[in-house]
């Protein structure tokens, strides 16, 4: 098809990949998947392996952390990158997913006598809850634009956190303990135990792959076209028959769902959550990851999400003289972000369209 040809003419890795026949593309994907699943054993690679793995924290645990950050980045990318809605309170959905799971499963929950479910049973209910939360937040606020929407979403995340801190039902700092792990046994031993984080990482990876497939399907359909049209000219889109409110609400609900997935996984792995987990910093960090990786592009969001989790974890346990670098992780991290944004304002792996939109805007600001 001719419209693909114009994209294929580009250079670089993506240009090369786009020009390959389908079977080569499948092989590349298969190799990437195998390598992703083998990541927990990266430390065994001679020479480079020890440089990659984290020292202060168990490497598979660090990988699991990366997996839910990647999920959050993928979800936020739908909201910010595709639909162009600036959401500063994304952690709220992560919290709703985690608290939904905790309320339905933990012995500390007031509902325990009636529910006390297994983790897997709680998952669909918790996810439905996050989608509803997305709709509740979206319905009244999506008529707002840009900065105003950002402020309202910021408020939403704070409301969730303060609610969790102050109400007795959500137990504040005491939190919920003994949240059950995901089910399954292998040779009589539970697969998802407390000592080995590798199965959790693999579970996260499987969920990530499903999310990628789902978001990709949506992107390459009228849904993705509608999002893009809304981002580029909302009024023109509506005059061309796009139900703008409906598609913005879907973006919010889908973003919330993916964020909820992250929360559900997090609760299942940790076994314990409290209100300290869901601080505002978390939202900002994930947004930074999306922008740093390349807003509007899934590969970028994945890379950004992985980096915001990896960089601080990697700095853990490294000392320069007497100072532990972990103490300065956010300072160093901020420095890295500044450097990346100065050198590559469109992100590490940018969306081509986003990069062009950015260029257009630069021209508007400074005409030649």
């Amino acid at each position: 098809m001719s419209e693909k040809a114009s994209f294929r003419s580009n250079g670089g890795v993506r240009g090369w990949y786009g020009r390959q026949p389908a079977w080569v593309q499948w092989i590349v994907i298969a190799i990437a998947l195998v390598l992703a699943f083998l990541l927990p054993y990266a430390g065994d690679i001679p020479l480079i392996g020890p440089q990659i793995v984290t020292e202060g924290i168990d490497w598979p645990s660090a990988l699991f952390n990366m997996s839910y950050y990647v999920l959050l980045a993928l979800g936020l990318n739908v909201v910010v990158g595709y639909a162009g809605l600036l959401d500063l309170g994304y952690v709220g959905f992560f919290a709703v997913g985690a608290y939904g799971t905790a309320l339905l499963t933990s012995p500390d929950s007031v509902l325990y006598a009636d529910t006390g479910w297994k983790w897997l049973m709680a998952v669909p209910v918790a996810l439905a809850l996050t989608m509803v939360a997305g709709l509740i937040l979206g319905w009244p606020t999506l008529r707002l634009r840009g900065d105003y929407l950002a402020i309202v979403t910021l408020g939403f995340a704070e409301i969730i956190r303060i609610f969790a801190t102050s109400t007795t039902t959500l137990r504040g700092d005491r939190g919920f303990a003994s949240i059950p792990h995901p089910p399954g046994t292998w040779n009589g031993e539970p697969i998802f135990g407390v000592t080995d984080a590798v199965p959790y990482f693999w579970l996260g990876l499987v969920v990530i792959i499903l999310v990628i497939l789902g978001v990709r399907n949506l992107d390459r359909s009228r849904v993705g076209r509608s999002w893009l049209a809304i981002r580029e000219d909302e009024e023109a889109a509506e005059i061309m028959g796009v139900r703008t409110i409906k598609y913005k609400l879907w973006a919010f609900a889908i973003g919330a769902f993916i964020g909820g997935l992250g929360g559900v996984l997090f609760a299942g792995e940790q076994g314990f959550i409290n209100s300290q987990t869901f601080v505002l910093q978390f939202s900002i960090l994930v947004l930074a990851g999306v922008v740093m990786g390349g807003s509007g592009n899934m590969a970028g969001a994945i890379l950004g999400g992985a980096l915001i989790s990896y960089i601080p974890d990697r700095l853990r346990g490294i000392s320069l003289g007497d100072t532990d670098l972990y103490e300065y992780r956010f300072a160093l991290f901020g420095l890295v972000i500044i450097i990346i944004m100065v050198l590559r304002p469109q992100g590490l792996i940018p969306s081509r369209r986003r990069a062009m939109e950015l260029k257009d805007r630069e021209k508007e600001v400074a005409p030649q």
Partner: protein
Amino acid sequence: MSEPHQETPEELDRANARPVDEPAPTGGKLDEPNPSPVRGEEVLLEVDHVTLRFGGVVALNDVSFSLRKGEIFGLIGPNGAGKTTCFNAMTGVYRPTSGTIRFQGESVVGKKKHEITRGGIARTFQNVRLFPEMTALENVMVGADAHHKTSVISALFRLPRFWQEEKSGRARSLELLRFVGIAHRAGDVSRNLSYGEQRRLEIARALATNPTLLCLDEPAAGFNPAEKEELLQLIRKIRDTGVTVLLIEHDMRLVMGVTDRIVVLEFGKKIAEGTPAEVRDNPAVVAAYLGVPTDAA
């Protein structure tokens, strides 16, 4: 509301058979009036005593006129006469202060913009407003999506309806690009298209929504005479597929050459209505355009 007209492939092929730059078989020259063969007496759109105020400014003052099905209707007037305002009131961008606008017997006042579009009124913009980073084909497909029923769920799981509508929408969009004469640019990002191509693409995108009424807001702005002639052919071609066309235009020669009836606005008021010949001889119109006092003429 009646079923929106859909061009069959045969109709489009017939329309495509003639290259754009060749003169149309029906009446060639710009200033020769060219009555629409398919014009009926059925009223399609009725602007009924519409007044629109912005604070103290009266943009439209008790304007009434009606469009008949199948005609090419011109809305002309000097700068700031309220032509685009009138357009915006029809397409739901503005809400009239008083009066109503009925389309196929149903009021459009208070309806949402996307509802009006799906009801059968499509438009282009005075300043081209495409989706710049989308390809030409994708731009048209956004328009085609207006009548699609693929839900988010069927897009997510690639259900049969998705494949079916994606395929038919793509085929129809390509047909429309061919119809307006820019099929060779289908895969190009629309910001890279030339100005004339962008104007044509906007028309294709509007046609993709299956309109009964197509409103063109100064489609010839910035065109040279040859391009204007091509545009004229295109407008006639669109009319021949059964779409009623409402044309806002500055260029009197172009309007005179293509329209069946004309309404002239000045300072938000209707000052004349009639066939091109009637309007041309109307002293009030001459005065409005040339600034000659009516009594001196």
